[in-house]
């Protein structure tokens, strides 16, 4: 009986010491809070945002479109790709869909053998149906960079286009021109899941059609 009590005391001692060691010597508390508790787990709720192909004119927080959007929109439709490093859905989207359609490769820390880092910002332009498409990728992991220009401006734009507001990842925004009660204005469609190259191409072509249909009237 005494040996059991000694075992209980040792186990309790080890676990209490272990708890405070892990809690105070690592950032596990912040990581659990930020990545598990505060961020909505779409896998846990078995749902996905209902945002397929709906173009909107009003931004979610009412703020105007950022300057870099308006500048790039003069060249053609824009695709914004928001992600965080530890995001399996983001990896699938970038490595299986974006990489093939845009002919680029994305680093993948979940699959690669060595430590890799997702760049905070990627910017590229491609031609589809003789129209320029601007693709901008943001890794919004580093919250400190939110306040640093120019990355900060880009990352902050997430709040303008996050129509669900749950910080879900990945988040892809298509920005083009559309007709809004007599005015030609920038419009956007926010999606949180694109599963195939065909789906992405369809969305790109739709944004190009809208753009070409309205671009002259926008000037």
């Amino acid at each position, binding site marked *: 009986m005494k040996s059991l009590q000694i*075992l209980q005391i040792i186990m*309790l001692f080890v676990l209490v010491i272990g708890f405070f060691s*892990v809690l105070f010597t690592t950032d596990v508390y912040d990581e*659990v*809070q930020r990545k598990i508790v505060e961020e909505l787990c779409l*896998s846990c709720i078995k749902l*996905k945002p209902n945002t397929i192909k709906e173009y909107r004119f009003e931004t979610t927080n009412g703020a105007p479109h950022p300057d870099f959007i308006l500048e790039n929109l003069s060249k053609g439709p824009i695709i914004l790709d928001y992600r965080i490093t530890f995001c399996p859905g983001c990896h699938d989207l970038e490595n299986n869909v974006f990489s093939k359609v845009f002919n680029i490769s994305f680093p993948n820390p979940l*699959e690669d053998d060595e*430590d890799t880092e997702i760049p905070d910002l990627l910017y590229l332009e491609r031609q589809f149906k003789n129209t320029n498409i601007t693709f901008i990728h943001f890794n919004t992991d580093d919250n400190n960079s939110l306040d640093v220009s120019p990355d900060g401006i880009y990352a902050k734009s997430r709040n303008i286009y996050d129509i*669900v507001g749950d910080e879900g990842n990945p988040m892809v925004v298509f920005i083009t021109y559309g007709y809004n009660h007599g005015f030609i204005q920038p419009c956007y469609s926010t999606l949180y899941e694109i599963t195939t190259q065909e789906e992405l191409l369809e969305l790109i072509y739709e944004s190009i059609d809208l753009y070409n249909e309205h671009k002259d009237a926008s000037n």
Partner: protein
Amino acid sequence: MKFQLKRLISQIIFLFSANLGALGIKTGFCVPFFYCNACPAASSACPLRSMELSVYKVFNNPNNFSLKLFLYPIIILGGVAVLTGRAVCGWACPIGLLQRATGRVARFLKKKIPFFKRIGQHKIERYLRYSKYLVLIGLVFLTSIFIGFVFTDICPIGMLTGTFPIMILKPGVYIPASYFYPALIIFILFFLLIFLIERGWCRYFCPIGAFLAPFNKVSIIHMKVDDKKCKHCNICSDVCPMGIDVPNMNRDPECILCGKCVSECPYSVVKFKGI
């Protein structure tokens, strides 16, 4: 105050504490029981989610392994379990509270329909109890290591505490993902199970119960039956929600320390020890 009323108050307090997120309190702790962090009001993380994240696709890339995310829920669950064994299932878990309510129906069915009584007494039943260990090792750990998040994709508790509240609070904002319908079927089976078999989820499938169960063998607080004074009237076994043979139990891994046997024993030979 009656003993079982104290337990009910404890369960309600823990239910509220698990939902403090509704007041804006979102912590970085893991709860030592089953509650989904996807619940809009959740205040802490589900330990299983942290375990899954810690080993996500480690087979493809060993660098994915996160020791801190792996140890953190294990230390929290282990610490609570060394103190109280599976008492959290009986005194704190909100899913335990739900099953406490549905258990009345299961108990009624068991009394009225012989088939349900036979299920509980079938010799295979005690082997079925090992299935929760398979869920913990297979669905929580192995699938995360080799495939991805399978358990959270089909977890019925996530459906109950996460999916349905979000569908009610944000109608039309979300639509079913590809694994919604398989998860819905599992949820319906879960719901039927807890109405047909008292504490059916705790007995056969709860992976957190599987983690806590072995600690009953060494926990400080445990149940003790006085063999010499026991008359073997089996009233304790009849009222036990986990279907344990109480007079012959010795730190049984299935015991959730609910204390029903303590309350009902006419000879007061079943007692809590270590308090």
